[in-house]
C-alpha cells in the first residue's frame, strides 16, 4: 500500500453513486491517461490511488459521499458555502500538503433521464453558480429520452433536449469564459428515434462528448496539480463538446415547444459556422481571452429582440390566478389574447402604435421595438418591455397599493430610462408549496440573456393565488431557493395576491 502520494483530491457528492461516476471517468486509462493502482481506506469512503501515465506521479481521490442536510454539512469544510445555492451532484477539490482544500476544480451533474417540460430548468441555478465562481461545469445527460404512460407499460413520445438550456450553458461559457458543458450519453432510445424518423441531432451516432469530457476533466486535474502551462491545451476535447452542444441547439431551437426566434437565425447557429463557433468558444476559454465575435450567444441585446423577437404569449389558468392578473396585466401584454381586429388595434394603440391596417399582426411585427416582445413563438416565460411608461400605468392600475418608489423603478418620469424592462410573470406556488421548476426559471433566463437580465431591469410578478401572504418574511429569510433566486437576479418583485411589492 502506498502511504504517500504527490497530489490529493476529494470528491464530494450527493451520494456514493455520484462520487463513483467521477472516478469511473478516471478509470478509463486510454482517455484519462491515469492508471488505477489501488483502493484503500474505509469501504464506504474509499481513497482511489491513480498513477499519472504522463508523469508517473501518484494521485489520490478520497470519496466523501453526502454533503449533509441543507443546514447541516457533515464535513469540517463546507465546499458549497459562498458558491452554490443548491448542491451539485459532485464536486472535486484539491487538498494541499497542509490539508487545506482548494475551491472546486470541477462540478458534475449526472442525469439518467431527460427532464420533461419546465423540469429542465431545475439545474439552471447550479450551472449559473458554477460559471459565476469560475468553476467548469459538466452536465451529463442522454441525447434523447422517451415518455412512458403512467404505468410504464407502453411508450409514448420521444423526449427531446431543451434547446434553451443548451443555449444558456453556451452563453454562460462565453459570458464568464468558463466551460458550462453538456455531455451527451448514448442510449438505446436513439435507435428507436432514428427508426421512427424522430428528430435527432445531425451526426448524433458519432457524438463523443463523453470521451472528450473525460479527457478535459483529466486535463483540469493535471492543470491543478502541475500548473497551467505544463501540458498542451485540450482544444480538441473542449471544441468537440461545444460543437455537439451547438449542433443540439441548432436541432432543437426551432422545434416543438421552443421556436426560439432570436437564436434560430443567430450567426453562431448557421450550419456553416457551427464548428467555428465551437472553436472560438473553446479557444477563448483556454487562452483566457474574450474576443468579440458574431458567434457569441451571450451578446444578445434588446436590439436583437426588436429585430428577431416575436409577440408574447403566456397562458394563465383561471383556477390558480386572479381576474386582476389575467385581465389587468397579462391581457395587456399578451398579443394572442386579442382575437378581433378591433382588439388588436386597441392593444397596439395602448402601446403607442396607431394603425388602421387590416393586418395588425404585420404591424405588430414591424413595431417590435415599441410593444412587448419575447424570444419564443410558443408560450413564453418572459417579455421585454421597452415602453416602460405604459407598463407603469398597467401595473399602477392593477396594483394601486404599490408606492411611488416601486412605480418609479418601473418608469421614472424624471429620468431618461432608455433600457427596456425584462418582465417575468412567475407562477411561483402550487397548492403544496413553492414550484421547484420555478426556482430554476430565472437563472435559466439569465443564462440565456445575461446582458439583458440585469438587476436594474428585471422585474418579477408572482401570480399564483397560492403565494403565501407572508412572502416578504420568506424573502427576508434568505433560505427559500425560489426567493433567493428572485433576490439575486431581479430588481423588483410584485405579488399579485397581496397587491404589494418590494425593491430587491
Amino acid at each position: 500500500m502506498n502511504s504517500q502520494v504527490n497530489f490529493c483530491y476529494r470528491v464530494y457528492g450527493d451520494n456514493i453513486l455520484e462520487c463513483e461516476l467521477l472516478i469511473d471517468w478516471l478509470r478509463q486509462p486510454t482517455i484519462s491517461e491515469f492508471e488505477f493502482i489501488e483502493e484503500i481506506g474505509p469501504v464506504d469512503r474509499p481513497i482511489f490511488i491513480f498513477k499519472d501515465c504522463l508523469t508517473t506521479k501518484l494521485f489520490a481521490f478520497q470519496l466523501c459521499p453526502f454533503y449533509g442536510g441543507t443546514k447541516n454539512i457533515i464535513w469540517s469544510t463546507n465546499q458549497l458555502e459562498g458558491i452554490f445555492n443548491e448542491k451539485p451532484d459532485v464536486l472535486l477539490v484539491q487538498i494541499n500538503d497542509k490539508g487545506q482544500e482548494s475551491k472546486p476544480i470541477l462540478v458534475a451533474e449526472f442525469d439518467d433521464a431527460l427532464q420533461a417540460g419546465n423540469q429542465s430548468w431545475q439545474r439552471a441555478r447550479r450551472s449559473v453558480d458554477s460559471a459565476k465562481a469560475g468553476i467548469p461545469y459538466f452536465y451529463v445527460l442522454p441525447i434523447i429520452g422517451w415518455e412512458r404512460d403512467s404505468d410504464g407499460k407502453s411508450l409514448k413520445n420521444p423526449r427531446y433536449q431543451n434547446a434553451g438550456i443548451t443555449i444558456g450553458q453556451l452563453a454562460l461559457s462565453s459570458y464568464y469564459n468558463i466551460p458550462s458543458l453538456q455531455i451527451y450519453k448514448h442510449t438505446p432510445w436513439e435507435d428507436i428515434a432514428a427508426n421512427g424518423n424522430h428528430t435527432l441531432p445531425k451526426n448524433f451516432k458519432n457524438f463523443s462528448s463523453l470521451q472528450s469530457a473525460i479527457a478535459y476533466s483529466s486535463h483540469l486535474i493535471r492543470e491543478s496539480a502541475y500548473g497551467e502551462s505544463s501540458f498542451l491545451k485540450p482544444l480538441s476535447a473542449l471544441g468537440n463538446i461545444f460543437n455537439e452542444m451547438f449542433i443540439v441547439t441548432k436541432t432543437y431551437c426551432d422545434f416543438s415547444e421552443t421556436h426560439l426566434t432570436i437564436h434560430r437565425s443567430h450567426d453562431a447557429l448557421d450550419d456553416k459556422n457551427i464548428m467555428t463557433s465551437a472553436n472560438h468558444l473553446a479557444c477563448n476559454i483556454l487562452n483566457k481571452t474574450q474576443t468579440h465575435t458574431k458567434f457569441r450567444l451571450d451578446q444578445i441585446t434588446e436590439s436583437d429582440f426588436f429585430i428577431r423577437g416575436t409577440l408574447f404569449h403566456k397562458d394563465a389558468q383561471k383556477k390558480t390566478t386572479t381576474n386582476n392578473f389575467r385581465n389587468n396585466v397579462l391581457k395587456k401584454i399578451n398579443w394572442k389574447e386579442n382575437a378581433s381586429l378591433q382588439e388588436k388595434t386597441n392593444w397596439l394603440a395602448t402601446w403607442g402604435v396607431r394603425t388602421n391596417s387590416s393586418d395588425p399582426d404585420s404591424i405588430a411585427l414591424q413595431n417590435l421595438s415599441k410593444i412587448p416582445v419575447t424570444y419564443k413563438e410558443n408560450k413564453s416565460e418572459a417579455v421585454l418591455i421597452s415602453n416602460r411608461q405604459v407598463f407603469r400605468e398597467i401595473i399602477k392600475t392593477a396594483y394601486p397599493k404599490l408606492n411611488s418608489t416601486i412605480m418609479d423603478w418601473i418608469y421614472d418620469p424624471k429620468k431618461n430610462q432608455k433600457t427596456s424592462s425584462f418582465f417575468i410573470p412567475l407562477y411561483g406556488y402550487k397548492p403544496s408549496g413553492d414550484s421547484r421548476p420555478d426556482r430554476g426559471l430565472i437563472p435559466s433566463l439569465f443564462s440565456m440573456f445575461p446582458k439583458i437580465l440585469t438587476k436594474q431591469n428585471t422585474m418579477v410578478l408572482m401570480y399564483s393565488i397560492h403565494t403565501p401572504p407572508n412572502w416578504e418574511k420568506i424573502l427576508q429569510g434568505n433560505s427559500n431557493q425560489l426567493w433567493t433566486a428572485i433576490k439575486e437576479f431581479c430588481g423588483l418583485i410584485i405579488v399579485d395576491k397581496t397587491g404589494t411589492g418590494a425593491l430587491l
Partner: protein
Amino acid sequence: MIDLDDILQYVPSQHGEHGVDSVIHRLCNKNNSMHESYCNPPGASWAEIRIKHPSGKLYHWDHIPRAPEKAKRPDSIIQYNENNEIHLLSIESKEKITDAYPDMNELLKNFFTGSKKFDGLFNRPAWHYNTANSTPSYIQNSKEQYWLKDYKQRFVYSGFAFSFEPEYYADISNFDDSKWNKMMVEKIKHIDLDIIIGVGWHGINHLPFTRIVANDKFAVTNFYKILNSTLLI
C-alpha cells in the same frame, strides 16, 4: 508529498442512512457472485433496475414510480443467481432500528409482485438489455420484455438496514454486541423480515463494522451465506 494517514483521518460528523447505503453498495460490488440490481441512496433519483438473467443477459427496467401505492421502492436490491434460480433481496435502509415499520416486509415484496393499485416490477416490461461489455439495446419482443413475469424460479426476500445508536465508537470494545443482537433478533421476528443489517463505525478513521441477523428460512440459503461473508466486516 501528502501523507495518506492524514487524509484518512478526514471523517464526517455523522454517517446515518447514507453511510449504511454506501457500506452495503460498496461491499456487494466487491463480490462478483452477487449482483447489485439497484442502489438508490437518499437524495438520489436513480430509477433504473437491472436484473441478471441466469443466461448472463442484463435486463433494464426504468420508469419505476418513486412512491408506488401499497408498495415500497427499496433503497437497494441485491441479486444472487443459483443455477436457474433468481434470488432478489430488497432492502430498505433507515437511520435507526426504531425506524423499521410493521408492514415493511409486505411493502418491499409488493414492489415486485404488485398491489391493488400498483403493477409490480414483475408485471412491467424491461425496455433494454445488454450482455457483458456490450452497449444496451432496445428489446423489440414483447415476450422478452415481460420474461420475468412468468419466470417460475424467482425468490424475493426483504431486508432492513440501519445504523446503530450511537453509530460511532472510538473504541469498538464499547459496542454492546449482545444488546444489539437481542434487539435485532426481536425486530426480525416482530416485522417478519428475512434479514437485518446493522452498521456502525469505529476508530480514528471511522471504519465501518456490521452485524447481521437472518431468519431461519433465509439463513440456510446459499445466498445468505455469500451475503453474510461479503457484508460482515
